[in-house]
Structure formats: C-alpha cells, structure tokens
C-alpha cells in the first residue's frame, strides 16, 4: 500500500494529489492514506502536504556526501568502522585492508565511484560516479563452516528486501546471488570469506547496486541495467543505503538465529524462473535442464532430460530462451 502511494506520487511528481483521490485509487480511507504519508515522511521522503491541494513528492535530491553517508550507517551500526571515499579503486580491496586492523564487529567501505571495481575471479565491475551504491561490508557471522556458502543467498535476500522497501521494485535472484531487473543484471554481489577449518572468521561482502545509471559501456548494454533505466525515475541512494544496512542486519540476525530454513522461502519468493529451461556451466561441463530451485542447503537443483536431478554447487546459469 505504502509503495503504491509512493508510486502514484512519483508518477505525478510535479502535481498535487488529493487525499480523496489517493484513497479512491487505492481503495482505502483518507486516514489510512495520511498514515502512510507519515511513514514515508519518517523514512526521509520529502513530501509536501498542502491543505485543499493534497500531497506532492518534492524534487529529487541525492546528497551522497561523506557526512550524510556516515550518519546513515552509524544510525544502524553505531560502532562500525566506516570509510567513505569520493573515489576509490575498489571498495573490496580497501575492505581487506580495513579488516587487518579492525576490532569492531562490523565494518563498511563505501565509495561514490570505483575506478577498478572488483568482480568475482578478478572480473571488473562497472561503477560510475554518483550513480550507484558501491559498498563492501565486513561482518563476522557466527555460523558453522559447512554452512558458509549460504551467506551468498542470505545477502541476495537482504538486497532484494532493501530495494523493495525503498522503491517498491521487485528484483529477482538468479542463483545464487545475481540480482536482475527485467532479466538484466542490476546488482552484483561478491562474497569473500576468511575461515579456519572449524569457524568462519570474517566475511567481506561487496555489493554493487546500479541505481541511477543511465548508460553502460556497449559490451554491457544488453546484460546490465539500473533501477532508474527500468523505471525512468531517480532514487535516493542515501535512503537505499540505509535500508540496505538495516536489511543486512535483519537477514543475518535471522539466519544466525534460525538457520537457512527460514531464509530459503524468502530466497525462493524472489527466485528467477523456477521451472524454466536453464543452462548451467560448471568448469567441466554444461548441463541443460529444468530449474528445480534449491535444496535445503541452498544448492541448485537441475532436472536433466533423463529425469535425474543434479545438484550443482559451482555453476553459472543462464535461461534458455523459449523456442517460439
């Protein structure tokens, strides 16, 4: 409901919308509309309310300054070690350095621009100035070592939750942790873990969320997108960051306390194309079959042509286009 109100305000950004009109559009009382507007105000949306005219969403502003960013982070994690850079080579590399001396339970390295963003296995990650959230989060999850791989799925659910709450946009998850919007990649997650044989010592999660990007290098054009490119709107990165950190805390607490069984249905609710034909490339071979989702450990299940189910722990998957 709240996201629907926000949606209507966004679609009519320069106009006042009366409480009466909003209530008829949404099928609720004017009091309910008023309450939802109050919640949006609490969350930092600048909504003008004028008697006899109604509500209007004020012009977008995105003040992603060091003070504002650190303020947002400390509001959730008062004791976190925080580093902000207006430009950095790679937040992930800097987070590794931060971890060497860090005593806090949580750490964050965030940059307004990455000049050498790091993807998995040394791949580069496109991250232009002012357009996205490029952040590396350091945590020390208290979980048994054999559960470690599930951390990637937990992070994916946390990002989906934050984006949904702030923007109303539903990202989908391509196993295990690529986040897509209309089938194109909108957010990349790189999870690196330091562990002993018997315990997880620390985890550095790099999250690159394309927010207000309007353009990508040509070679990425049919693969990558941003929240803005798919909706035609611009979003407040500061609010998104705040929601992201909240959501990471919530999902990881839940996971540490209750285990993967509670994360699994949340992950599945956002999962991309269950039941679709997919191609899964492992290092040795390529599997084609039906996406049968994940098992209780988060491992990908693919049903091969002979009806057998294969469990895949390491694979890159892609959807096979319909033959029509």
């Amino acid at each position, binding site marked *: 409901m709240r996201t629907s109100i926000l949606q209507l305000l966004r679609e009519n950004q320069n106009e006042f919308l009366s409480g009466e009109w909003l209530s008829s559009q949404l099928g609720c009382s004017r009091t309910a509309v008023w309450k939802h507007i109050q919640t949006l105000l609490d969350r930092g949306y600048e909504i003008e309310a004028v008697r006899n005219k109604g509500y209007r969403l004020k012009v977008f502003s995105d003040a992603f300054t060091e003070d504002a960013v650190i303020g947002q982070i400390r509001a959730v994690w008062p004791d976190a070690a925080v580093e902000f850079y207006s430009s950095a080579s790679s937040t992930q590399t800097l987070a590794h350095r931060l971890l060497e001396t860090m005593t806090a339970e949580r750490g964050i390295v965030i940059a307004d621009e990455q000049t050498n963003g790091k993807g998995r*296995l040394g791949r580069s990650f496109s991250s232009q100035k002012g357009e996205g959230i490029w952040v590396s989060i350091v945590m020390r999850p208290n979980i*048994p*070592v054999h559960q470690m791989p599930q951390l990637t799925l937990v992070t994916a659910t946390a990002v989906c939750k934050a984006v949904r709450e702030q923007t109303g946009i539903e990202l989908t998850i391509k196993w295990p942790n690529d986040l897509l919007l209309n089938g194109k990649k909108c957010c990349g*997650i790189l999870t690196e873990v*330091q562990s002993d044989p018997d315990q997880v010592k620390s985890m550095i999660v790099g999250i690159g969320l394309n927010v207000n990007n309007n353009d990508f290098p040509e070679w990425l054009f049919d693969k990558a997108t941003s929240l803005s490119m798919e909706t035609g709107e611009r979003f407040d990165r500061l609010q998104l960051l705040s929601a992201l950190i909240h959501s990471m805390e919530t999902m990881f607490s839940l996971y540490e306390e209750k285990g993967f069984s509670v994360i699994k249905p949340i992950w599945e609710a956002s999962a991309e194309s269950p039941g679709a034909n997919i191609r899964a490339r492992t290092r040795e071979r390529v599997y084609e079959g039906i996406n049968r989702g994940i098992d209780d450990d988060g491992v990908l299940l693919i049903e091969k042509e002979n009806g057998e189910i294969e469990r895949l*722990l390491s694979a890159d998957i892609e959807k096979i286009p319909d033959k029509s």
Partner: protein
Amino acid sequence: MLKIQEIRELIKLIDESSIDEFTFEQNGSKVSMSKNNQPTVQAVNQSGATPVAVPPAPEPAPQPPAPANAENQAADPAGASGTAAASAADADLVAITSPMVGTFYESPSPDAEPYVKKGDPIQKDSVVCIVEAMKLMNEIEAEVNGEIVDILVENGQLVEYGQEMFTVKRK
C-alpha cells in the same frame, strides 16, 4: 554411479555394523568409507563426473579427519591408512585441507599468478588458495608456518570437505 540415497543407505548399514573399512567399486565409480572417531565418507568417481559429497556432520570432530585424496586412494586401496602412514613417517609434514565442498582455485583470477607454488615459504596467515561454492570465495589460510612441499589438487578441480590440498613441511 551410485545414487545419493544408495550411498546414504550404505553409510547407515556400515555405521550400524562392526566393519571399520569398506570399499565398493562399480563402473568406474568407487566409494570408500572408514570409521575413525567420526566416520569419514568420501565418494570418488573415476570417470570424471561430479563427485558426490556427503555433508559433514553438524558437529565436526575438533581435529577434522583428513580423508585420503583421490590419488592416494587409487594407489592405496586402504585409503586413509596411507595418509596416516605418511604422517607417521615425517611428523613435520602436515596437510592443508579444504573446510568445505567446492571448486579449488590456485589464483585470485585466471590471469593472476598462483597464490603459492611448490617450494614457497608460507606463514600462518598466508592465503594459499580459494575454494568456491555457490559464488562464495573462501580464502584459505595456511594456519601453519613452513614450506609448500606438494600441491595435491589441480586448478578448477572439485574438492571435498576435508580433502588434502597441500602438503606443508612445518618449520
């Protein structure tokens, strides 16, 4: 290749029996089991298909058991005993084992130099390789000061829980 359910049943039967070691071969697939304090189970498919791993017990033994790797098993049907004999022969030789099932990577990226080579000196906190599962990159630290004597797995190979990846001469 045996199905997971069949392997599960085998484990159960062996577990309830007084048999300490068990090996079963069929069509190029081999399953070896041996009972230590905690039973260690490993399935190796010699035809090259994806090995099946039985997830570790929720509470692993304080000293994780080190099952023999595929090479040892091929050479020595007694499996784990081969490793034990080698360790007894040279107490300074220790293994770095994988803490999880996943893909072994020798370097941080395909075009980068390997983290370590044979003969390299290593410190406790030296990263020696990455084991990847479900896109989680686990940077494995040596946990021991010494020198890399042998690398037992190949880049891109699937490693099992507890599988030996490096032999290190302790210093």
